[in-house]
């Protein structure tokens, strides 16, 4: 769709209507993963490895099975063999085979008639381990003599002679790097580290799975993607996908972490073994932290060349990331692609290593990789701006990409709004607030590609002219409202006349999850296209009634009306009238769209943070926070702001306090919210937002997708603010008080 075809005057799009699921969610009625029960239901519990790396010699479940009320125990022996690639990864992560690869790795599961009994039974399952040497740190895992986690796991990309835990090697870039650095007035090279963090959704994983001997199954589950659960469970258990019906519950946060399976296949395996009784498994928090997918930890070298006026002449990045004991989940490629994406670079080189370590299999986390890349690149840019006495926003404006520029990762950018974002940031009053002693201001920019993905949406007109929409993307943060607005706007009917339903796998073609900031973009575009199909049908019904050519009917304000030579010949036929007569005029009126919606628009954001650092304790207080980001078009501005604020809060947590802490024994030391320290209400100020709208020509309303970009800038922005406040440059997250204090005491440049 060309740019000038984007609609601009809207009645509903851009308004702050109440979300349709709001009433259920403020009254406690909404049903989340653990809120579902079925008759005859059993309860499952999982036995987990207490060791970071151990051979499983023997599993003896006889004592557990002897308990009255215990109905089934499953181990890896109950799963099919011979899986490869990601299917094997999923299976082995769901249930260890010969080797437990991390603290928390599932080794057996049990189903019993009560949750307490299942827990008791799990304690009676005896596992004989042979402890193996382990490694959890990415740099340690990269060493040639590190314990080998899985020999032969490296793919085609790894050249001969690399250390044994390197399983993927990346190398991309363009331009003459040496010439670029030679043209610079200032060249700096630094090393940065980030620790693994967890998505930290408040709702633990939960499901009820039922699987009969006939291979037919049902699952009720909290997930970002019911079809992903379906194919993954089918793959892990060797089932026919279409025989498994997966219904998504309301979802209590995901942020990428609920785009895969963990204990879901176990509930099905237990159910099958227990004669097809449904089995509920609800993780506790420590299971969530130990055994679901955090993001990668990273070790990163960045080198930049800059002229005295702030022009970046060359950039080089070499990133090492571990994503657990399985291949493919370390977002090192994305981190590299995002690191320099905001800038025009005549020469750039990216090198990446994906490394195995004895940690849980990483999962996606909000703009996977982008926060780490931004931390390294945006910290160094800031450091060089300070050294050269340049304004950080001016320097970013000078180097910012715009439509038609070659991206750091190769392709040419289409319409993007980075310059508009930077200009709005510069103009915001927060950027001019005077600062006091021990206070500092930090600026940083972030990027996310955004994504489309497999999408299938159906809609139908009800008998009274209201509309129902079936979508496959679970509503995590208000997407029913934005989809409802777009459909109502397209139909020209009140928002309240549309019901958006998130449906089970049996009701639509395959949909990818609500990930990649795609729900409002992809399901939204598909819903509009499906609605247009239904409108076309309604115009045909009206044309038939009037006896005129359907081409001579247009849809205006919720009614068919004659156009062109027939204009004014007949009164408009409203949707309610067409719908009321549908049975007599040809039957149901529906619309459907399926495919891969093209026209994804990338989103840039810039954050400005003011902090105060206690010089005696190194404690950082966030005083003021501003998010400026290009939304393309804000369909429901409140939920766009919510995405900006939520992303910022997660990034603040990552920057200051959140980290996976492993002991020398390879065990996770902080598997509870007491010690995995996500921001609490009193840690944060109000988070100011500016929604920049540079419409995406690839979406009927100009939507880009807004969910992910906002988590990247906080990491460097806060590091930059701490440097401004204290003179100390922190290059290892999180920037905890002991680290900040040590850096302050070590002198101006830690």
């Amino acid at each position: 769709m060309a740019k000038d075809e984007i609609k601009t005057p809207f009645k509903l799009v851009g308004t702050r209507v109440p979300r349709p699921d709001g009433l259920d969610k403020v009254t406690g009625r909404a049903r989340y993963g653990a809120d579902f029960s079925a008759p005859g239901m059993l309860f499952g519990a999982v036995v987990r490895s207490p060791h970071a790396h151990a051979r499983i010699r023997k599993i003896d479940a006889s004592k557990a099975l002897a308990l009255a009320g215990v109905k089934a125990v499953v181990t890896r022996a109950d799963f099919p063999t011979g899986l490869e690639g990601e299917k094997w990864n999923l299976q082995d992560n769901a249930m260890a085979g010969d080797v437990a690869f991390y603290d928390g790795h599932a080794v057996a599961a049990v189903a019993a008639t009560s949750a307490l009994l299942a827990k008791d039974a799990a304690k009676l399952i005896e596992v004989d381990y042979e402890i193996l040497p382990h490694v959890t740190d990415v740099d340690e895992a990269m060493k040639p003599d590190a314990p080998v986690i899985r020999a032969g796991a490296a793919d085609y990309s790894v050249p001969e002679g690399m250390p044994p835990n390197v399983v993927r090697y990346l190398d991309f870039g363009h331009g003459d790097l040496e010439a670029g650095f030679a043209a610079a007035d200032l060249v700096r090279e630094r090393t940065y580290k980030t620790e693994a963090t967890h998505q930290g959704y408040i709702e633990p994983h939960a499901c009820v799975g039922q699987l009969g001997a006939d291979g037919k199954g049902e699952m009720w589950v909290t997930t970002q993607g019911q079809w992903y659960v379906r194919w993954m469970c089918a793959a892990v258990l060797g089932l026919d996908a279409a025989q498994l019906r997966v219904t998504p519950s309301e979802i209590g946060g995901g942020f990428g972490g609920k785009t895969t399976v963990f204990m879901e296949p176990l509930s099905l395996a237990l159910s099958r073994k227990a004669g097809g009784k449904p089995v509920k498994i609800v993780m506790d928090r420590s299971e969530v932290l130990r055994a679901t997918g955090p993001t990668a930890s990273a070790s990163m070298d960045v080198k930049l060349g800059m002229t005295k006026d702030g022009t970046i002449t060359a950039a080089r990045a070499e990133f090492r990331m571990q994503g657990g004991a399985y291949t493919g989940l370390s977002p090192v490629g994305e981190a590299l692609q995002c690191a320099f994406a905001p800038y025009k670079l005549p020469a750039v080189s990216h090198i990446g290593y994906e490394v195995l370590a004895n940690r849980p299999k990483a999962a996606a986390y909000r703009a996977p990789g982008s926060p780490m890349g931004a931390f390294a690149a945006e910290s160094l840019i800031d450091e060089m701006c300070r050294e050269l006495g340049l304004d950080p926003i001016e320097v970013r404006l000078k180097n910012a990409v715009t439509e038609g520029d070659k991206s750091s990762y190769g392709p040419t950018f289409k319409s993007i709004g980075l310059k508009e974002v930077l200009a709005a940031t510069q103009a915001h009053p927060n950027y001019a607030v005077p600062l006091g002693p021990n206070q500092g201001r930090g600026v940083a920019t972030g990027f996310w590609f955004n994504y489309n993905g497999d999408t299938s949406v159906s809609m139908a007109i009800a008998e009274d002219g209201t509309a129902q929409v079936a979508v496959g993307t679970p509503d995590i943060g208000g997407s029913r409202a934005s989809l409802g607005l777009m459909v109502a706007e397209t139909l020209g009917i009140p928002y309240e006349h549309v019901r958006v339903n998130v449906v089970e796998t049996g009701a639509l073609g395959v949909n990818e999850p609500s990930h990649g900031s795609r729900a409002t973009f992809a399901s939204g575009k598909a819903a509009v296209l499906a609605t247009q199909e239904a409108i076309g049908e309604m115009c045909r019904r009206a044309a038939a009634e009037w006896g005129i050519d359907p081409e001579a009917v247009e849809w205006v304000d919720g009614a068919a009306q004659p156009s062109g030579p027939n204009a004014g010949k007949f009164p408009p036929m409203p949707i309610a009238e067409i719908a009321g007569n549908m049975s007599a005029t040809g039957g149901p009126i529906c619309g459907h769209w399926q495919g891969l919606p093209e026209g994804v628009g990338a989103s840039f954001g810039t954050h400005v943070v003011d902090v105060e650092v206690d010089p005696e304790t190194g404690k950082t207080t966030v005083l003021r926070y501003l998010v400026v980001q290009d939304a393309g078009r804000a369909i429901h501005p409140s939920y766009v702001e919510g995405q900006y604020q939520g992303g910022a809060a997660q990034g603040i947590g990552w920057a200051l306090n959140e980290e996976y802490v492993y002991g020398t024994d390879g065990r996770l030391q902080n598997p509870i919210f007491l010690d995995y320290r996500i921001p609490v209400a009193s840690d944060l100020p109000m988070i100011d937002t500016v929604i920049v709208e540079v419409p995406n020509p690839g979406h009927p309303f100009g939507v880009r997708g807004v969910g992910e970009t906002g988590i990247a800038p906080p990491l460097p922005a806060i590091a930059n603010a701490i440097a401004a406040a204290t003179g100390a440059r922190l290059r290892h997250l999180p920037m905890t008080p002991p680290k900040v204090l040590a850096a302050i005491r070590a002198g101006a440049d830690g």
Partner: protein
Amino acid sequence: MSKIHVSATVNGDPVEFLADPRETLLDCLRDHLDLTGSKEGCGTGDCGACSVLLDGRLVCSCLVLGVEAEGKRVETIEGMAEPGGELHPLQRKFIEHAALQCGFCTPGILVASKALLARNPDPTEEEVRYWLAGNLCRCTGYDKIVRAVMDAAADLRGAA
């Protein structure tokens, strides 16, 4: 392990249930009384998703044994709206301000906020933030939650 008979009042209604002594009040509300509005996010008193009032006092129901509820008054999210369905001003303001995204922490935050406004009808932003420090929200960054609570407080003061 024998179960213990417990009689209590939940949202004004008399209830009875049989509790294993190891079961928490949260387990009993959810599994024995079908009141699944209170959520378990951590089981360690660190997230507040299971917040209820016990004899008028705000507590984490995951840190109370079900058997301790004997003879006590329990108020949960399910009892927050009027019996006829009219929403409490906090509930209205949460929808109006888009103070929820996933909604999982929302019941606990509403119950905790109601307890705050009962004792402090005109809280400052800082008081709201510290009172709710034990209610984790991972979606919103708390901004809209704090605004909704303060707006509901103003609404209630106006109505009083």
